């Protein structure tokens, strides 16, 4: 799972890259790897890695994201510290890239540095999202993103979900589609990500050898929490929205 020092998550808008990147970084830290997460999202205004910076830092992940006022802006401002993550051979870097081919454009900026390193470029798929519902449209989007990132995808992440309404059937239905994409493009499915409270059910039904990444959901609307600054609180396991 972690033979590559740099792991980059790309995908279509709302495919779950941020949640995956956060949880993957925490997973690496728990394994004892020194890890930095880089918020490369230049297109989303809300629900970005930077909103849980304090939580991540508390848990031992170094966070590289726009600071101060810029953290609240929707500007393509990239902190110079990103360079250090690309050049530090000791550290593990996890990159959360913005959605669609527009968000992936940013990777072109770092192409030269990435090619010098060993990196994994994972395309995150949520089959329940618009424009990625079937094999053909997913492959089309992969090509769009590869073109604007100027890099080849090296693996897929199977992340089908319906938010709080996710059930095991939804996950497996989406995972089957992801597998057909993987077969067609001759790419590995790097892992299957599953909300922590569904892990047991999924692992009991799973009859293939694949890494399961348990997910804590960080990017929640504020009515999930009864606190003043919801985005900085470590979330509980997902529960039903009260209506």
């Amino acid at each position: 799972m972690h033979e590559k020092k740099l792991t980059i998550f790309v995908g279509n808008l709302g495919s779950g890259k941020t949640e995956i990147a956060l949880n993957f970084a925490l997973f690496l830290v728990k394994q004892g790897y020194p890890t930095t997460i880089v918020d490369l999202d230049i297109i989303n205004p809300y629900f970005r890695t930077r909103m849980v910076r304090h939580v991540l830092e508390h848990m031992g992940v170094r966070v590289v994201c726009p600071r101060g006022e810029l953290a609240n802006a929707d500007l393509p401002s990239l902190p110079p510290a990103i360079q250090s993550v690309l050049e530090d051979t000791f550290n593990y870097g996890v990159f959360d890239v913005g959605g669609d081919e527009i968000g992936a454009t940013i990777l072109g900026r770092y192409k030269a540095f990435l090619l010098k390193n060993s990196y994994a470029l994972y395309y995150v798929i949520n089959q329940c999202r618009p424009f990625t519902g079937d094999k053909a449209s997913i492959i089309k989007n992969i090509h769009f993103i590869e073109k604007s990132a100027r890099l080849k995808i090296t693996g897929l992440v199977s992340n089908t979900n319906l938010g709080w309404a996710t059930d095991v059937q939804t996950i497996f239905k989406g995972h089957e589609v992801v597998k057909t994409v993987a077969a067609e493009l001759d790419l590995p499915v790097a892992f299957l990500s599953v909300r922590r409270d569904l892990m047991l059910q999924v692992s009991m039904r799973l009859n293939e050898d694949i890494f399961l990444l348990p997910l804590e959901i960080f990017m929640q609307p504020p009515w999930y929490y009864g606190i003043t600054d919801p985005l900085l609180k470590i979330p509980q396991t997902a529960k039903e929205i009260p209506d």
Partner: protein
Amino acid sequence: MAKVLMKGNEAFGEGAIRAGCRFYFGYPITPQSELAHFLAKRMPEVGGTFLQAESELASINMVYGAAGAGARVMTSSSGPGISLMQEGISFIACAELPCVIVNIMRGGPGLGNIAPVQSDYFQATRGGGHGDYRLIVLAPSSVQEIIDLIREAFDLAEKYLNPVLMLGDGLLGQMMEPVELNEVKEVSLPPRPWATSGRMGGPKRIINTLIIVPEELEKHNLKLNQKYKRIEVKEQRWENYQTEDAQLVLVAFGTAARVCKGVVDYCREQRLAVGLIRPITLWPFPVKAFDYLLSLATVRYFLSVEMSTGQMIEDIRLAVNGRRPVYFYGRFGGMLPVLTDVVKEVKKLLLEEEC
């Protein structure tokens, strides 16, 4: 019936397409841009037209033109962009043409910020531009409701030949929720006698907002006003949540209403008789909801919860008309009301006098 996970902004786009809208003119602005981004991809799939105009002024005038030609047409923006559109919206209201405008509100005044607020309430419900007119204003509070209401928005626009504004805040636009989508059906649009698509032997069709003779403009103002009176009687929409035996009734729309539902649930667990009126039409304001509750006589207070310094509270006070006290709790500037803080306000009102 397919379940998909959608952002609020995408749901406005998909909902519009399902309502038969095939023309979109707009200009990007955070936190609304995903709507344009979505329709740029989606409109060509259904043979529709997506056009990014050079400004909001251009987009609203393209909407004016398309509506005049009989199209189901939509535009969207956020606060500052909607302000730029006001002249065009006033023209469309005067010309009595149907269209749907989406405002995904962000922090203001001025350039403000890109965080969620509800402070464009006055602009939305009082007309917004110059002259004597109103917009029908719908305020969904979930991604599913966006899909369901936008269909109604187009129907209302054509029924009354008036622009309809859909008002949401940045959080509603950005958050993702599961929605159920029915099969896309071909929408057959009702006859469009206003459209400048040829007189077909009938009377001349002219779209004009220059009514230079005062006697004639007064007649036109009166005609519009009678229409607004009809809308006020017929089109009030709201949701009651545990109001039947409530002593304290919260009033909130959109995102604030989502927080308030949690507040009601929490208070009910603590045996506090709290309910919620969630206006779905902000104009016409659901006065009937208040009249009904006041006829039950159990309600003692109203508490308006808004993501502004207090705008809807004026409409609540007009609806309550002095019959009960109306209090206010708000967060603004992009800060959100949270459950514990609203509960504190509720307890202040319901419990303190007993101590």
